[in-house]
């Protein structure tokens, strides 16, 4: 989403409108009378821009403070493609008469095209004069989007209204911002508008389906994918997405079947094996997952992600040696990937060998001292080992947790362990702060809610407790429901159906 040609066209339209307004002596310039602007306007109407420039220069010699003339000259320059002189003319007009709408629009367009932040105050000024101007809102929305300010962008996109219905890229920008703001239902609606513009484009279907999944509307996602699934040469990506939708809709058998279909089409697609492993993990069908990943590794023996995934599954079966071997292999294949090193440490934790876990994490940390995952793990393992407040181990845990949070503020687990450490030292306000930040990242974090309750209890601040207790109960209820859904199915090898009683 780098360029918005459609928006540029819009701007040209507004400039044309400005020219027309000038020609009609509209209320834009209420003070205008029988003036030297008339010949310039005529030249613009005739699309004789050189003449318009020439006439405006001549007129300005006698009327240098005439904002209309400067504006017309700007329009003439802009029409010739001379943005530098056009901008200078518009700026001169605005200096004389700051509320000149056409000059504001013209200057804003040039700044916008140059991707200059100078467009923002111009557009804001324009909107002060014309609060409902959809084009200005659209331009400002795009500017804010480019600056990463999604909150402001979505506000302006919304006010741009139907103007966006012809602008696919703008709709994508709008929807992307909505996703970032976690306003998923609105994002779905916006992507649906984009799909309406390009109903035959499979990419629009895939994007919309993806967002529908994120909005936890898997049935809608399946409906969106339906036309793609009907075609004869359906591709693996579509099947993969459909598999996700089926799984999220609770139809695990169809999810597995669809994923198998995708694997037949793209047997070297690592992500498909990871998907399969994930389903197996969710449904605690660990051995099936291991077998499928092993198949993938036979085709892609250097896929470090597959080793990590298989290692995780081995851990579930308490086969720690095999798990560690897989994590080690993953690390050999890709030393920059911290997941394998972290998983290796966690496998040792799971095997109740905290010393080995700590050694493993610290060895890797020596090579990657600023890896937030490893720092978090170091803090967590030290905490689990029972480091006492005041001890060097505790200080190291606290230091590691703080660094992990600083390096990756969106790592809720690091905030969780930091909150735990604060609780142990009686720093309840700090614990409260970490819990609140963890909840801002993941509102479903039961640990954060629980610790927040306990920390607030300690501080004697009981105002929030009823709401938090209710929230925790709701989260638990929701988790139980989801767990029941997950546990509906268990995967079995096709050649061993008798295992299922």
């Amino acid at each position, binding site marked *: 989403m780098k360029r918005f040609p459609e928006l540029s066209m819009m701007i040209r339209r507004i400039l044309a409108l400005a020219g027309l307004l000038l020609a009609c002596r509209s209320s834009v310039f209420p003070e205008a009378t029988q003036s030297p602007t008339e010949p310039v306007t005529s030249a613009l109407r005739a699309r004789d821009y050189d003449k318009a420039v020439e006439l405006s220069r001549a007129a300005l010699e006698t009327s240098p403070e005439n904002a209309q003339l400067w504006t017309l000259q700007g329009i003439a320059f802009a029409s010739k493609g001379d943005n530098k002189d056009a901008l200078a003319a518009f700026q001169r007009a605005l200096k004389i008469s700051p509320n000149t709408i056409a000059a504001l629009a013209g200057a804003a367009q040039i700044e916008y095209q140059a991707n200059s932040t100078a467009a923002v105050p111009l557009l804001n000024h324009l909107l002060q004069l014309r609060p409902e101007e959809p084009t200005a809102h659209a331009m400002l929305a795009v500017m804010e989007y480019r600056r990463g300010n999604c909150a402001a962008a979505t506000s302006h996109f919304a006010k741009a209204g139907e103007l966006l219905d012809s602008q696919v890229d703008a709709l994508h920008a709008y929807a*992307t911002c909505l996703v970032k703001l976690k306003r998923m239902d609105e994002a779905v609606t916006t992507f649906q508008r984009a799909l309406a513009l390009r109903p035959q484009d499979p990419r629009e279907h*895939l*994007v919309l389906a*993806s*967002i529908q*999944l*994120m909005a936890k509307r898997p049935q809608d996602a399946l409906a969106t994918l339906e036309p793609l699934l009907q075609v004869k040469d359906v591709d693996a*990506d579509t099947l*993969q*997405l459909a*598999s*996700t939708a089926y*799984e999220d809709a609770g139809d695990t058998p169809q999810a597995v079947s669809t994923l198998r279909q995708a694997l037949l089409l793209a047997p070297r697609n690592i992500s498909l094996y*990871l*998907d399969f*492993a*994930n*389903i197996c993990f969710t449904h*605690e069908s660990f*051995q099936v997952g291991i077998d499928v990943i092993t198949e993938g590794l036979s085709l892609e023996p250097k896929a470090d992600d597959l080793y990590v995934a298989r290692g*995780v599954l081995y851990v*579930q*079966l*308490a086969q720690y040696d095999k798990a560690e071997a897989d994590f080690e292999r993953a690390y050999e294949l890709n030393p920059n990937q911290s*997941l394998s090193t*972290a*998983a290796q440490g*966690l496998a040792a*934790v*799971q095997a*109740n060998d*905290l010393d080995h876990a700590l050694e493993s994490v610290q060895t890797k940390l020596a090579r990657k001292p600023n890896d937030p*995952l490893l720092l978090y793990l170091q803090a967590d393992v030290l905490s*689990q*080992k*029972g480091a006492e407040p005041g001890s060097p181990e505790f200080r190291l845990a606290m230091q590691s947790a703080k660094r992990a949070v600083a390096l990756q503020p969106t790592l809720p687990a*690091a905030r*969780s*362990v930091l909150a735990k450490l604060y609780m*142990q030292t009686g720093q309840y306000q700090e614990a409260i702060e970490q819990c609140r930040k963890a909840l801002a990242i993941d509102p479903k974090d*039961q*640990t*954060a809610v*629980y*610790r927040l*309750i*306990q920390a607030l*209890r300690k501080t004697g601040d009981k105002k929030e407790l009823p709401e938090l*207790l209710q929230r*925790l*109960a709701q989260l*638990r209820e929701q988790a139980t429901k989801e*767990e029941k859904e*997950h*546990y*509906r199915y*268990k995967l079995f090898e096709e050649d061993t159906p008798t*295992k*299922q*009683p």
Partner: protein
Amino acid sequence: MIYTRRAFMGFSLGSAVAMTAERMFGQGVVAHQAKPLARPAPSGRPFHAHFVDVGKAAGLRAPTIYGGLESKRYILESTGCGCAFIDYDNDGWMDIFLLCGTRLEGAPAEATNRLYKNNRDGTFTDVTEKAGLRAVGWASGVCIGDYNNDGFEDIFCTYFGQNILYRNNGDGTFTDVTKAAGLLNEQTRWGAGCSFFDYNRDGHLDLFVSNYIRFSIEHAPVPGANTNCNWKGVPVECGPRGLPTGRHSLYKNNGDGTFTDVSQQAGIAQATTCYGMTVVAADLDEDGWPDIYVACDSTPSLLFMNNHDGTFREEGVLRGVALSDDGEEQAGMGIGVGDYDLDGHLDLFKTHFADDANVLYHNDGKGNFDDVTRTSRVGVETRYICWGAGMVDLDNDGHPDLFMVTGNVYPEVERTLPQYANKTPRAVFRNLGNNTFEELVEAAGPGVAEAHCSRGCAFGDFDNDGDVDMLIINLNETPSLLRNDIQGKQNWIKVKLEGVKSNRSAIGARVLAHYGGKTQVQSVLSQSSFYSSNDPRLHFGLGANTLVSVDVHWPSGLVESFKHLPINQLVTLREGVGVVKNRGWSNT
């Protein structure tokens, strides 16, 4: 911008790795896991208690039948049952009552609950038939109390099926009065924990019953059927997760031998999302009214606070005893109650599943609890599935110790994963006197170190020699009777209470013993440990102290103080009367 499952996988794996290990690797019965804390160096201090299993020699020769030996098809076969020390004949010697289960294929001849009369010479006689207590079924918990205030302790047994109330006739026999008392279930329920207690302080013992699971053999899934029926990849019995939770019951004693189900109006029936197990009723916030704590399996444990008006409010999460310190559910099984730090407040010790720590909760005296598992070093042990537990002074040094029995629920797992043995040792956590504990197994004697698949455990002084012995249920084995062959010359006192205005058993009374500048509190409980009932005589080790004073907070609200009581003997205190003659006790 396609958000594929790969992204989710990356997220879930990344998150899992980034979250704690239990999130990544959790499964099966309970999600929460804890890692063993690093063990500190041994204290080197001698431990004067020494336990020897004298069960068979004492005549406890009938095995506790409970489900399959090599594998369990249903969870019904694995949770096991409790036991009790009860002086049913008021001779001053603790008799033994043992619950029993059955088998899916049918009950063997020896399958029955059993009552053993104490012969006062270290042996027991099986008087089950004579007492009218023969019963076959899937028994769970037992609680003891004199519900009709006739001076003889009665027995309530919970079952999968129908619970049973046995009235003690005072002549060595019991009568099943379940129906007459109004305690018949309308349908099959899985009664689990239970406690007699006087929630409305009218002097009559009411009854709380936790229920575990809504279960039927006909509809229960079988091993491997779904993801709740696998443990570390091994197909095992299903549950409790995935099975519907039980509903707990409060029965009000009408004072005429009958009970009324007041679960709904009391606010008990509303707690419907927990797999209830052991029940403890005690005044945890010291407001003079008994509260109820229910250890719950794989769900948040419950703490019902008494509102003084016949109703309760559930505040387990708020008060810090429902979940682990990271807010996760644990497999609550047994509960020990006592005052480990001698601050005069009742603390709680709750046992859990393997790969999780048992939790020690410190009470601030207002019923607010802090998880001190880490600082107390109790968290060094996570290997075993733990059941019966107590907070009792095993070596009479004046500092209550912790004890737990263990045993797997999946006998088939050890064939695949030898690290998860079916039979496992017991463990003592001796109190070092500085709010920390030291785990002792072999050092506490062979009775502790021997491996069994244990469940219920009751604490009491069966040989009246001034120490705490232990009675333990072992599934499909004979029970253990761990005689405490204590060494040294530590002092002690036992306090037996007799209610007058309060219920006769004085259940719910709090006794504060003051010695050596410290105060230890104990409460008369109808059930604790795992589904079990302890010797109602409260035993206080005194260490080298020779002076002890006692305050009694009777359930009626009366508070009495007794200065400089005689030590190394039992003292019987009657409400409003004072010290009275002991029944049948011979001083040692």
